[in-house]
Protein backbone atom coordinates (compact mmCIF):
# COMPACT_ATOMS: atom_id res chain seq x y z
CA UNK A 1 0.00 0.00 0.00
CA UNK A 2 1.27 3.49 -0.82
CA UNK A 3 2.46 5.90 1.86
CA UNK A 4 -0.22 7.08 4.22
CA UNK A 5 1.61 10.24 5.28
CA UNK A 6 3.16 12.60 2.74
CA UNK A 7 5.46 15.51 3.66
CA UNK A 8 3.64 18.28 1.72
CA UNK A 9 0.29 17.27 3.20
CA UNK A 10 1.73 17.23 6.69
CA UNK A 11 3.28 20.67 6.16
CA UNK A 12 0.09 22.12 4.70
CA UNK A 13 -2.03 21.09 7.68
CA UNK A 14 0.47 22.02 10.37
CA UNK A 15 -1.45 24.92 11.91
CA UNK A 16 -4.70 22.99 12.11
CA UNK A 17 -3.05 19.87 13.45
CA UNK A 18 -0.85 21.59 16.05
CA UNK A 19 -2.97 24.58 17.08
CA UNK A 20 -6.49 23.99 15.75
CA UNK A 21 -6.34 26.99 13.46
CA UNK A 22 -9.52 26.91 11.40
CA UNK A 23 -11.45 29.06 8.96
CA UNK A 24 -14.75 30.34 10.31
CA UNK A 25 -17.67 31.70 8.33
CA UNK A 26 -18.39 35.25 9.47
CA UNK A 27 -22.00 34.85 8.38
CA UNK A 28 -23.14 31.55 9.95
CA UNK A 29 -20.20 30.55 12.14
CA UNK A 30 -19.46 27.23 10.41
CA UNK A 31 -15.90 26.01 10.88
CA UNK A 32 -13.62 24.64 8.15
CA UNK A 33 -10.38 22.78 8.82
CA UNK A 34 -9.02 23.93 5.45
CA UNK A 35 -8.49 27.37 3.96
CA UNK A 36 -11.55 28.29 1.97
CA UNK A 37 -13.38 31.23 0.46
CA UNK A 38 -16.78 29.50 0.29
CA UNK A 39 -18.64 28.55 3.45
CA UNK A 40 -19.70 24.90 3.17
CA UNK A 41 -22.98 25.61 4.97
CA UNK A 42 -24.24 29.01 3.76
CA UNK A 43 -21.99 29.68 0.73
CA UNK A 44 -21.00 33.05 2.15
CA UNK A 45 -17.64 34.37 0.93
CA UNK A 46 -16.89 35.93 4.28
CA UNK A 47 -14.64 33.28 5.81
CA UNK A 48 -11.82 34.30 8.11
CA UNK A 49 -9.07 32.58 10.04
CA UNK A 50 -9.87 31.69 13.63
CA UNK A 51 -8.69 29.29 16.30
CA UNK A 52 -10.70 26.70 18.18
CA UNK A 53 -10.50 26.86 21.97
CA UNK A 54 -8.07 24.64 23.82
CA UNK A 55 -10.87 23.07 25.82
CA UNK A 56 -13.84 21.01 24.81
CA UNK A 57 -16.33 18.54 26.26
CA UNK A 58 -16.54 14.82 25.63
CA UNK A 59 -19.77 13.80 23.88
CA UNK A 60 -19.14 10.08 23.44
CA UNK A 61 -16.23 7.72 22.86
CA UNK A 62 -15.21 4.25 21.78
CA UNK A 63 -12.10 2.11 21.46
CA UNK A 64 -10.33 1.11 18.25
CA UNK A 65 -9.45 -2.55 18.70
CA UNK A 66 -8.80 -3.32 15.04
CA UNK A 67 -6.30 -0.69 13.96
CA UNK A 68 -5.88 0.81 10.50
CA UNK A 69 -2.61 1.10 8.58
CA UNK A 70 0.07 3.02 10.55
CA UNK A 71 -1.74 2.55 13.88
CA UNK A 72 -0.95 -1.16 14.31
CA UNK A 73 1.30 -0.68 17.34
CA UNK A 74 -1.13 1.52 19.24
CA UNK A 75 -4.27 -0.62 19.40
CA UNK A 76 -6.35 -0.75 21.44
CA UNK A 77 -6.70 3.02 21.78
CA UNK A 78 -9.49 5.38 22.81
CA UNK A 79 -11.07 7.82 20.37
CA UNK A 80 -13.79 10.29 21.22
CA UNK A 81 -16.21 12.85 19.86
CA UNK A 82 -15.55 16.25 21.41
CA UNK A 83 -17.57 19.46 21.23
CA UNK A 84 -16.30 23.02 21.65
CA UNK A 85 -18.31 25.81 23.19
CA UNK A 86 -19.36 27.08 19.75
CA UNK A 87 -20.82 23.67 18.88
CA UNK A 88 -17.97 22.59 16.57
CA UNK A 89 -17.32 18.86 16.83
CA UNK A 90 -14.19 16.82 16.14
CA UNK A 91 -13.17 13.21 16.60
CA UNK A 92 -9.75 12.67 18.08
CA UNK A 93 -7.56 10.35 20.05
CA UNK A 94 -8.23 10.59 23.80
CA UNK A 95 -5.00 10.21 25.74
CA UNK A 96 -3.42 10.24 29.22
CA UNK A 97 -6.34 8.49 30.88
CA UNK A 98 -8.03 5.18 31.56
CA UNK A 99 -11.34 4.29 29.96
CA UNK A 100 -12.99 4.39 33.41
CA UNK A 101 -12.22 8.11 33.78
CA UNK A 102 -14.29 8.99 30.74
CA UNK A 103 -17.89 10.09 31.11
CA UNK A 104 -19.91 12.06 28.60
CA UNK A 105 -19.74 15.74 29.49
CA UNK A 106 -16.30 15.81 31.13
CA UNK A 107 -13.97 18.66 30.29
CA UNK A 108 -11.03 17.93 28.01
CA UNK A 109 -7.98 19.89 27.01
CA UNK A 110 -6.05 19.81 23.78
CA UNK A 111 -2.53 18.45 23.70
CA UNK A 112 -0.12 17.82 20.84
CA UNK A 113 0.97 14.20 20.59
CA UNK A 114 2.59 11.85 18.17
CA UNK A 115 -0.17 10.49 15.95
CA UNK A 116 1.61 7.72 14.09
CA UNK A 117 4.78 6.62 12.37
CA UNK A 118 4.77 5.70 8.72
CA UNK A 119 6.84 2.54 8.84
CA UNK A 120 10.56 2.37 9.64
CA UNK A 121 11.74 5.25 7.49
CA UNK A 122 8.63 7.34 6.82
CA UNK A 123 7.34 10.43 8.58
CA UNK A 124 6.58 10.65 12.27
CA UNK A 125 3.45 12.76 12.34
CA UNK A 126 2.09 14.86 15.19
CA UNK A 127 -1.28 16.41 15.82
CA UNK A 128 -3.96 17.25 18.35
CA UNK A 129 -5.38 14.81 20.85
CA UNK A 130 -7.47 15.48 23.93
CA UNK A 131 -7.08 14.46 27.56
CA UNK A 132 -9.21 15.00 30.65
CA UNK A 133 -8.49 18.60 31.75
CA UNK A 134 -5.80 18.65 34.40
CA UNK A 135 -4.30 22.12 33.96
CA UNK A 136 -5.91 25.18 35.51
CA UNK A 137 -8.27 27.14 33.36
CA UNK A 138 -11.85 27.50 32.41
CA UNK A 139 -13.91 26.16 29.56
CA UNK A 140 -13.99 29.35 27.53
CA UNK A 141 -13.33 30.19 23.90
CA UNK A 142 -9.61 30.53 23.40
CA UNK A 143 -9.18 29.14 26.93
Amino acid at each position, binding site marked *: *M*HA*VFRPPVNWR*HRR*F*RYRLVVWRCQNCGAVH*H*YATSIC*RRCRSNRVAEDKLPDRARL*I*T*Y*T*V*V*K*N*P*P*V*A*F*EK*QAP*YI*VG*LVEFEDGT*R*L*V*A*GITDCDLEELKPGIELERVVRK*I*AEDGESGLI*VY*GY*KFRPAITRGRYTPGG
Partner: protein
Amino acid sequence: MRKVYIVGASLLKVDEQWGQSIDSLVTQVVDGLAEVRPWKLDSIYVANALGEILQNQANLGAIVAEDVGLTGVPALRVEAGGASGAAALLSGYQAILSGLADTVLVIGVEKLSDATPEESVFLPSLSERYDLVGFQGVTEAALAAMMYRMYLERYELPQEMVAQFPVLMHEHASKAPHAQYQFKTTLENVLSSPVVSPPLRRLETTAPADGAAAVILCSSDALPTIQHEQVVELAGAASSTDIVFPFDREDPLKLSAAARAFYEALARPGLSREQVKVLEIHDSYSILANLILESIGYSAEGASGVDAKNGMFDYGGKVVINTFGGLKARGHPLGATGVYQAAEIFLQLTGRAGACQVDGVKYGAMISLSGLGSSAYALVMKEG
Protein backbone atom coordinates in the same frame (compact mmCIF):
# COMPACT_ATOMS: atom_id res chain seq x y z
CA MET B 1 -42.64 8.86 -22.23
CA ARG B 2 -39.25 7.20 -22.47
CA LYS B 3 -38.73 4.41 -19.94
CA VAL B 4 -35.75 2.41 -18.68
CA TYR B 5 -35.81 -1.37 -18.35
CA ILE B 6 -33.52 -4.01 -16.90
CA VAL B 7 -33.43 -6.95 -19.29
CA GLY B 8 -30.88 -9.16 -17.60
CA ALA B 9 -28.94 -9.55 -14.38
CA SER B 10 -26.05 -11.74 -13.33
CA LEU B 11 -24.23 -12.15 -10.05
CA LEU B 12 -21.42 -14.29 -8.68
CA LYS B 13 -21.22 -15.84 -5.23
CA VAL B 14 -19.69 -13.31 -2.88
CA ASP B 15 -16.60 -14.91 -1.42
CA GLU B 16 -12.91 -14.57 -0.81
CA GLN B 17 -11.91 -15.51 -4.36
CA TRP B 18 -8.15 -15.85 -4.01
CA GLY B 19 -7.71 -17.31 -7.48
CA GLN B 20 -9.74 -14.68 -9.31
CA SER B 21 -8.66 -11.29 -10.60
CA ILE B 22 -10.86 -8.29 -11.46
CA ASP B 23 -10.64 -9.43 -15.10
CA SER B 24 -11.70 -12.99 -14.41
CA LEU B 25 -14.57 -11.94 -12.13
CA VAL B 26 -15.81 -9.58 -14.84
CA THR B 27 -15.73 -12.21 -17.57
CA GLN B 28 -17.54 -14.74 -15.36
CA VAL B 29 -20.32 -12.35 -14.45
CA VAL B 30 -20.82 -11.22 -18.05
CA ASP B 31 -21.01 -14.87 -19.13
CA GLY B 32 -24.06 -15.04 -16.88
CA LEU B 33 -25.80 -12.57 -19.19
CA ALA B 34 -25.64 -14.93 -22.17
CA GLU B 35 -29.42 -14.99 -22.53
CA VAL B 36 -29.51 -11.36 -23.60
CA ARG B 37 -26.84 -11.64 -26.28
CA PRO B 38 -26.16 -10.41 -28.89
CA TRP B 39 -25.76 -6.83 -27.72
CA LYS B 40 -25.37 -3.56 -29.41
CA LEU B 41 -24.19 -1.60 -26.43
CA ASP B 42 -24.03 2.18 -26.30
CA SER B 43 -22.20 2.47 -23.01
CA ILE B 44 -20.55 0.52 -20.19
CA TYR B 45 -20.38 1.74 -16.59
CA VAL B 46 -17.95 -0.08 -14.31
CA ALA B 47 -18.45 0.37 -10.57
CA ASN B 48 -15.36 -0.20 -8.47
CA ALA B 49 -14.08 1.54 -5.34
CA LEU B 50 -10.52 0.43 -4.65
CA GLY B 51 -8.93 -1.03 -7.79
CA GLU B 52 -6.11 1.48 -7.95
CA ILE B 53 -5.13 0.77 -4.35
CA LEU B 54 -5.57 -2.98 -4.05
CA GLN B 55 -4.82 -4.13 -7.60
CA ASN B 56 -2.76 -1.13 -8.80
CA GLN B 57 -5.35 -0.79 -11.53
CA ALA B 58 -7.22 2.33 -12.54
CA ASN B 59 -8.83 3.11 -15.91
CA LEU B 60 -11.23 0.22 -15.47
CA GLY B 61 -13.54 1.47 -18.22
CA ALA B 62 -11.24 0.50 -21.08
CA ILE B 63 -9.89 -2.52 -19.24
CA VAL B 64 -13.27 -4.06 -18.50
CA ALA B 65 -14.55 -3.28 -22.01
CA GLU B 66 -11.57 -5.19 -23.40
CA ASP B 67 -12.00 -8.04 -20.88
CA VAL B 68 -15.47 -8.76 -22.20
CA GLY B 69 -14.60 -8.27 -25.87
CA LEU B 70 -16.39 -4.96 -26.24
CA THR B 71 -13.48 -2.66 -27.06
CA GLY B 72 -14.85 0.34 -28.93
CA VAL B 73 -17.86 0.81 -26.67
CA PRO B 74 -17.61 3.92 -24.47
CA ALA B 75 -16.79 2.73 -20.96
CA LEU B 76 -16.33 4.61 -17.73
CA ARG B 77 -15.41 3.65 -14.17
CA VAL B 78 -17.66 5.07 -11.46
CA GLU B 79 -16.46 5.53 -7.89
CA ALA B 80 -18.70 6.60 -5.02
CA GLY B 81 -17.28 4.48 -2.19
CA GLY B 82 -19.71 1.82 -1.01
CA ALA B 83 -22.38 3.28 -3.28
CA SER B 84 -20.31 2.97 -6.48
CA GLY B 85 -22.62 0.28 -7.87
CA ALA B 86 -25.73 2.37 -7.32
CA ALA B 87 -23.97 5.42 -8.75
CA ALA B 88 -23.12 3.44 -11.90
CA LEU B 89 -26.75 2.34 -12.19
CA LEU B 90 -27.94 5.92 -11.81
CA SER B 91 -25.46 6.99 -14.51
CA GLY B 92 -26.83 4.34 -16.87
CA TYR B 93 -30.41 5.37 -16.07
CA GLN B 94 -29.59 9.00 -16.81
CA ALA B 95 -27.80 8.11 -20.06
CA ILE B 96 -30.85 6.25 -21.29
CA LEU B 97 -33.38 8.87 -20.18
CA SER B 98 -31.28 11.57 -21.85
CA GLY B 99 -31.79 9.82 -25.17
CA LEU B 100 -28.05 9.49 -25.80
CA ALA B 101 -28.01 5.76 -25.06
CA ASP B 102 -30.44 2.91 -25.68
CA THR B 103 -28.49 0.02 -24.19
CA VAL B 104 -26.14 0.16 -21.23
CA LEU B 105 -24.14 -2.52 -19.42
CA VAL B 106 -23.53 -1.83 -15.72
CA ILE B 107 -20.89 -3.97 -14.03
CA GLY B 108 -19.86 -3.81 -10.39
CA VAL B 109 -16.63 -5.54 -9.43
CA GLU B 110 -14.49 -5.49 -6.32
CA LYS B 111 -11.71 -7.63 -4.87
CA LEU B 112 -11.17 -6.81 -1.20
CA SER B 113 -9.43 -10.04 -0.23
CA ASP B 114 -6.13 -8.70 -1.58
CA ALA B 115 -5.97 -6.29 1.38
CA THR B 116 -4.06 -6.86 4.61
CA PRO B 117 -6.19 -6.78 7.80
CA GLU B 118 -4.94 -3.23 8.54
CA GLU B 119 -5.80 -2.09 5.01
CA SER B 120 -9.27 -3.62 5.38
CA VAL B 121 -9.78 -1.37 8.40
CA PHE B 122 -8.20 1.68 6.81
CA LEU B 123 -9.78 1.60 3.35
CA PRO B 124 -13.46 2.11 4.35
CA SER B 125 -12.41 5.31 6.13
CA LEU B 126 -11.34 6.75 2.77
CA SER B 127 -15.00 7.69 2.33
CA GLU B 128 -14.83 9.90 5.40
CA ARG B 129 -12.87 13.18 5.50
CA TYR B 130 -9.36 11.88 5.95
CA ASP B 131 -7.89 15.02 7.55
CA LEU B 132 -10.53 14.94 10.29
CA VAL B 133 -11.08 11.24 10.79
CA GLY B 134 -8.55 8.86 9.24
CA PHE B 135 -5.60 11.00 10.28
CA GLN B 136 -6.59 10.59 13.93
CA GLY B 137 -6.68 6.80 13.63
CA VAL B 138 -10.46 6.92 13.85
CA THR B 139 -11.86 4.10 11.73
CA GLU B 140 -15.23 4.12 10.01
CA ALA B 141 -16.25 1.34 12.41
CA ALA B 142 -15.37 3.62 15.35
CA LEU B 143 -17.57 6.39 13.91
CA ALA B 144 -20.39 3.87 13.46
CA ALA B 145 -19.83 2.68 17.04
CA MET B 146 -20.22 6.22 18.37
CA MET B 147 -23.43 6.68 16.37
CA TYR B 148 -24.58 3.32 17.79
CA ARG B 149 -23.86 4.42 21.39
CA MET B 150 -25.60 7.75 20.81
CA TYR B 151 -28.63 5.88 19.44
CA LEU B 152 -28.90 3.48 22.39
CA GLU B 153 -28.53 6.35 24.86
CA ARG B 154 -30.97 8.72 23.18
CA TYR B 155 -33.79 6.19 22.96
CA GLU B 156 -32.76 4.27 26.10
CA LEU B 157 -32.68 0.96 24.28
CA PRO B 158 -30.95 -2.36 24.98
CA GLN B 159 -28.30 -3.34 22.43
CA GLU B 160 -30.55 -6.13 21.20
CA MET B 161 -32.66 -3.54 19.37
CA VAL B 162 -29.73 -3.01 17.00
CA ALA B 163 -27.89 -6.32 17.20
CA GLN B 164 -30.90 -8.36 16.07
CA PHE B 165 -30.59 -7.05 12.50
CA PRO B 166 -27.56 -9.23 11.70
CA VAL B 167 -29.53 -12.26 12.95
CA LEU B 168 -32.30 -11.46 10.46
CA MET B 169 -29.75 -10.95 7.68
CA HIS B 170 -28.08 -14.32 8.30
CA GLU B 171 -31.51 -15.98 8.38
CA HIS B 172 -32.25 -14.58 4.92
CA ALA B 173 -28.79 -15.44 3.58
CA SER B 174 -29.13 -19.04 4.74
CA LYS B 175 -31.37 -19.63 1.70
CA ALA B 176 -29.31 -17.56 -0.76
CA PRO B 177 -26.81 -19.54 -2.87
CA HIS B 178 -24.79 -16.44 -3.78
CA ALA B 179 -24.44 -15.16 -0.20
CA GLN B 180 -21.00 -14.99 1.41
CA TYR B 181 -22.21 -16.19 4.81
CA GLN B 182 -24.98 -18.76 4.53
CA PHE B 183 -24.99 -19.73 8.20
CA LYS B 184 -27.69 -18.74 10.66
CA THR B 185 -26.71 -17.03 13.85
CA THR B 186 -28.32 -16.02 17.13
CA LEU B 187 -28.50 -12.84 19.14
CA GLU B 188 -26.26 -14.49 21.74
CA ASN B 189 -23.64 -15.20 19.06
CA VAL B 190 -23.75 -11.63 17.79
CA LEU B 191 -23.45 -10.15 21.27
CA SER B 192 -20.61 -12.47 22.26
CA SER B 193 -18.59 -12.01 19.05
CA PRO B 194 -15.37 -9.99 19.48
CA VAL B 195 -15.71 -6.27 20.10
CA VAL B 196 -14.56 -4.16 17.14
CA SER B 197 -15.26 -0.78 18.76
CA PRO B 198 -17.69 -0.86 21.68
CA PRO B 199 -20.60 -1.35 21.44
CA LEU B 200 -20.08 -2.60 17.86
CA ARG B 201 -19.32 -6.34 17.59
CA ARG B 202 -17.65 -8.33 14.85
CA LEU B 203 -20.92 -9.92 13.72
CA GLU B 204 -22.44 -6.46 13.27
CA THR B 205 -19.98 -5.51 10.53
CA THR B 206 -18.95 -6.88 7.15
CA ALA B 207 -15.79 -8.76 6.16
CA PRO B 208 -13.50 -8.65 3.10
CA ALA B 209 -15.44 -9.85 0.09
CA ASP B 210 -14.84 -10.33 -3.61
CA GLY B 211 -17.64 -10.24 -6.09
CA ALA B 212 -19.07 -9.05 -9.38
CA ALA B 213 -22.59 -8.36 -10.54
CA ALA B 214 -23.94 -6.99 -13.80
CA VAL B 215 -27.20 -5.77 -15.29
CA ILE B 216 -28.23 -4.65 -18.75
CA LEU B 217 -30.38 -1.55 -19.04
CA CYS B 218 -32.29 -0.58 -22.15
CA SER B 219 -34.71 2.09 -23.27
CA SER B 220 -38.38 1.53 -24.08
CA ASP B 221 -37.46 2.27 -27.72
CA ALA B 222 -34.86 -0.49 -27.83
CA LEU B 223 -36.77 -3.08 -25.78
CA PRO B 224 -38.59 -4.71 -28.75
CA THR B 225 -35.26 -5.21 -30.58
CA ILE B 226 -33.45 -6.91 -27.68
CA GLN B 227 -33.54 -10.63 -27.09
CA HIS B 228 -34.46 -11.17 -23.45
CA GLU B 229 -36.31 -13.58 -21.20
CA GLN B 230 -37.21 -11.31 -18.30
CA VAL B 231 -37.81 -7.63 -17.94
CA VAL B 232 -38.22 -5.23 -15.04
CA GLU B 233 -38.81 -1.49 -15.25
CA LEU B 234 -36.27 0.75 -13.56
CA ALA B 235 -39.00 3.18 -12.62
CA GLY B 236 -37.05 5.72 -10.60
CA ALA B 237 -33.53 6.53 -9.51
CA ALA B 238 -32.16 9.44 -7.53
CA SER B 239 -29.33 10.47 -5.29
CA SER B 240 -28.51 13.07 -2.69
CA THR B 241 -25.61 14.15 -0.50
CA ASP B 242 -25.20 15.11 3.13
CA ILE B 243 -22.56 16.78 5.29
CA VAL B 244 -19.72 14.24 5.24
CA PHE B 245 -18.74 14.15 8.93
CA PRO B 246 -21.80 12.51 10.55
CA PHE B 247 -21.49 14.42 13.82
CA ASP B 248 -21.53 17.71 11.96
CA ARG B 249 -25.05 17.05 10.67
CA GLU B 250 -28.03 18.62 12.36
CA ASP B 251 -28.90 15.19 13.71
CA PRO B 252 -26.23 12.47 13.35
CA LEU B 253 -28.93 9.80 13.70
CA LYS B 254 -30.92 11.07 10.74
CA LEU B 255 -29.73 9.98 7.29
CA SER B 256 -31.21 12.88 5.35
CA ALA B 257 -29.54 12.04 2.04
CA ALA B 258 -31.06 8.55 2.13
CA ALA B 259 -34.51 10.00 2.79
CA ARG B 260 -34.21 12.58 -0.01
CA ALA B 261 -32.95 10.02 -2.55
CA PHE B 262 -35.60 7.46 -1.60
CA TYR B 263 -38.55 9.82 -1.85
CA GLU B 264 -37.31 11.38 -5.08
CA ALA B 265 -36.91 7.93 -6.63
CA LEU B 266 -40.42 6.96 -5.49
CA ALA B 267 -41.88 10.23 -6.76
CA ARG B 268 -40.78 9.68 -10.37
CA PRO B 269 -43.19 6.78 -10.95
CA GLY B 270 -45.62 8.29 -8.41
CA LEU B 271 -45.34 5.45 -5.91
CA SER B 272 -45.82 5.46 -2.17
CA ARG B 273 -43.56 3.75 0.35
CA GLU B 274 -46.32 1.27 1.20
CA GLN B 275 -46.27 -0.21 -2.31
CA VAL B 276 -42.64 -1.31 -1.94
CA LYS B 277 -42.59 -4.88 -0.63
CA VAL B 278 -38.91 -5.70 -1.11
CA LEU B 279 -36.27 -3.28 0.10
CA GLU B 280 -32.51 -3.69 -0.08
CA ILE B 281 -30.77 -1.48 2.47
CA HIS B 282 -27.12 -0.64 3.11
CA ASP B 283 -26.39 -2.38 6.42
CA SER B 284 -22.60 -2.24 6.38
CA TYR B 285 -22.93 -1.75 10.15
CA SER B 286 -25.94 -3.06 12.09
CA ILE B 287 -26.82 0.44 13.31
CA LEU B 288 -27.25 1.65 9.73
CA ALA B 289 -30.23 -0.70 9.33
CA ASN B 290 -31.99 1.10 12.21
CA LEU B 291 -31.01 4.55 11.00
CA ILE B 292 -32.06 3.93 7.37
CA LEU B 293 -35.43 2.40 8.28
CA GLU B 294 -36.18 5.30 10.63
CA SER B 295 -34.84 8.00 8.32
CA ILE B 296 -37.00 6.86 5.39
CA GLY B 297 -40.06 6.58 7.58
CA TYR B 298 -40.76 2.84 7.83
CA SER B 299 -40.30 3.10 11.59
CA ALA B 300 -40.68 5.93 14.06
CA GLU B 301 -37.45 7.26 15.59
CA GLY B 302 -36.00 4.67 17.94
CA ALA B 303 -38.67 2.12 16.99
CA SER B 304 -37.06 0.08 14.19
CA GLY B 305 -35.76 -2.49 16.68
CA VAL B 306 -39.21 -3.13 18.11
CA ASP B 307 -40.68 -3.21 14.60
CA ALA B 308 -38.07 -5.75 13.53
CA LYS B 309 -38.77 -7.84 16.60
CA ASN B 310 -42.44 -7.83 15.63
CA GLY B 311 -41.58 -9.18 12.18
CA MET B 312 -42.26 -6.01 10.21
CA PHE B 313 -39.17 -6.46 8.03
CA ASP B 314 -39.30 -10.24 7.58
CA TYR B 315 -41.33 -12.47 5.27
CA GLY B 316 -45.00 -11.80 5.97
CA GLY B 317 -44.21 -8.32 7.29
CA LYS B 318 -44.88 -4.88 5.85
CA VAL B 319 -41.71 -4.88 3.73
CA VAL B 320 -39.04 -7.58 3.52
CA ILE B 321 -35.55 -6.13 3.84
CA ASN B 322 -32.39 -7.63 2.36
CA THR B 323 -34.01 -10.81 1.06
CA PHE B 324 -30.62 -12.38 0.24
CA GLY B 325 -28.92 -11.27 3.46
CA GLY B 326 -27.87 -7.71 2.66
CA LEU B 327 -24.40 -6.34 3.12
CA LYS B 328 -24.09 -8.19 6.40
CA ALA B 329 -24.57 -11.74 5.15
CA ARG B 330 -24.76 -11.73 1.34
CA GLY B 331 -21.55 -9.74 1.67
CA HIS B 332 -20.25 -6.29 0.83
CA PRO B 333 -17.87 -6.27 -2.15
CA LEU B 334 -17.75 -2.50 -1.83
CA GLY B 335 -18.06 -1.07 -5.34
CA ALA B 336 -20.11 -4.04 -6.57
CA THR B 337 -22.67 -4.00 -3.75
CA GLY B 338 -25.16 -1.64 -5.41
CA VAL B 339 -25.26 -3.79 -8.54
CA TYR B 340 -25.87 -6.86 -6.34
CA GLN B 341 -28.82 -5.06 -4.76
CA ALA B 342 -30.28 -4.26 -8.19
CA ALA B 343 -29.71 -7.80 -9.48
CA GLU B 344 -31.44 -9.20 -6.39
CA ILE B 345 -34.50 -7.01 -6.85
CA PHE B 346 -34.54 -8.10 -10.51
CA LEU B 347 -34.62 -11.74 -9.32
CA GLN B 348 -37.48 -10.95 -6.92
CA LEU B 349 -39.57 -9.12 -9.52
CA THR B 350 -39.09 -11.85 -12.12
CA GLY B 351 -40.01 -14.63 -9.70
CA ARG B 352 -36.57 -16.21 -9.78
CA ALA B 353 -35.46 -15.58 -6.22
CA GLY B 354 -35.76 -19.29 -5.32
CA ALA B 355 -36.10 -19.96 -1.60
CA CYS B 356 -35.76 -16.20 -0.97
CA GLN B 357 -38.79 -15.32 -3.10
CA VAL B 358 -41.30 -12.84 -1.68
CA ASP B 359 -44.76 -13.70 -3.00
CA GLY B 360 -46.74 -11.26 -5.09
CA VAL B 361 -44.10 -8.57 -5.16
CA LYS B 362 -44.69 -5.82 -7.73
CA TYR B 363 -42.32 -3.09 -6.58
CA GLY B 364 -38.86 -3.26 -5.07
CA ALA B 365 -36.42 -0.58 -3.99
CA MET B 366 -32.82 -0.25 -2.90
CA ILE B 367 -30.84 2.25 -0.89
CA SER B 368 -27.08 2.43 -1.15
CA LEU B 369 -24.77 4.67 0.86
CA SER B 370 -21.22 5.81 0.71
CA GLY B 371 -19.50 6.51 3.96
CA LEU B 372 -21.98 6.85 6.79
CA GLY B 373 -24.66 8.39 4.60
CA SER B 374 -22.76 11.26 2.97
CA SER B 375 -23.94 10.07 -0.43
CA ALA B 376 -27.13 8.13 -0.88
CA TYR B 377 -28.63 6.50 -3.94
CA ALA B 378 -32.08 5.00 -4.29
CA LEU B 379 -33.56 2.97 -7.13
CA VAL B 380 -37.12 1.80 -7.53
CA MET B 381 -38.10 -1.10 -9.77
CA LYS B 382 -41.44 -2.25 -11.07
CA GLU B 383 -42.63 -5.59 -12.35
CA GLY B 384 -42.09 -5.66 -16.15
